[in-house]
């Protein structure tokens, strides 16, 4: 039997309603106040439009309905994150409902029946926070 010891890593904790979720900090580019997204017709699930950030057109992915259901409170900020899409790194804006927090913690393996887009768990002062795999969360398979 082999024991593996993980070093603590840095995560960005963000609220969606009453629950908090985490993303690896290396994936997060910035936290910005929410602008109204610009919309045009498309058929990609979760995408609600695009925003202009630093002369770039950044898609907005509202993941709240998947994570906490349709009654999520108003989103106040965008977490702009880097994602690997089709072999390329691209930025996506994730609307969140409140202030974010940095946390150093050891990522624990997933236990029990959790959706496949949960890549790990953080245990923070009695609170269990799910670490999200955004690429998986936004993949077509989730909606198939």
């Amino acid at each position, binding site marked *: 039997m082999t024991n593996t010891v993980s070093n603590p890593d840095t995560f960005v904790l963000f609220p969606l309603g009453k629950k908090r979720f985490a993303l690896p900090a290396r994936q997060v580019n910035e936290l910005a106040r929410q602008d109204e997204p610009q919309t045009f017709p498309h*058929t990609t699930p979760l995408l609600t439009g695009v925003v*202009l950030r630093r002369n770039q*057109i950044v*898609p907005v992915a509202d993941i709240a309905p998947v994570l906490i259901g349709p009654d999520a409170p108003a989103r106040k900020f965008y977490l702009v994150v880097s994602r690997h899409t089709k072999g390329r790194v691209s930025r996506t804006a994730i609307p969140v409902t409140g202030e974010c927090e940095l946390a150093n913690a050891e990522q624990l393996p997933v236990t029990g029946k959790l959706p496949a887009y949960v890549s790990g768990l953080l245990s923070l002062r009695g609170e269990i926070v799910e670490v999200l795999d955004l690429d998986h969360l936004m993949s077509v398979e989730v909606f198939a």
Partner: protein
Amino acid sequence: MVLFSVAGSMFAIPARSVEEIREIAGLREFPSRLARVKHTVLRQGKCYFVVDAARHFRMSSQQPGKLMLLRHAPVAVLVDAIDRMQEIQSIHELPAAFGGDERNWYRGLTLIKGKVVPVVHPESFLSKAEVTLLSVLLRGKRSAEAAAVTA
């Protein structure tokens, strides 16, 4: 680029791909299996299949007011309004996160006075295969009409 609007959204299409813009008149009913093609229109003896842009982009139809006849194929696009002609500086690639039908609909996105406007692929309104199938259907319909007149 020609800027046009459908159900409150603005789109751009290369001006070179538009043969003519005209009022909606002379539409003939043409029941087809494609929900977005329900009419044809004649121009100088050539029959164009009319694509309802609102249905094409899965939007609720508003008040179609113009027809854009395309150059590359016998396709006319029913739109709400033609806004204006506009030169554009650049076309941004559609962000990779967009993975649905829009990858076929759009060449990319352009910025016009801070507004993000999709630049449409003219070929996406009807594929070559769809035009072929509709042409066969049209020939069949004409033959049936001719036979009925003869009888």
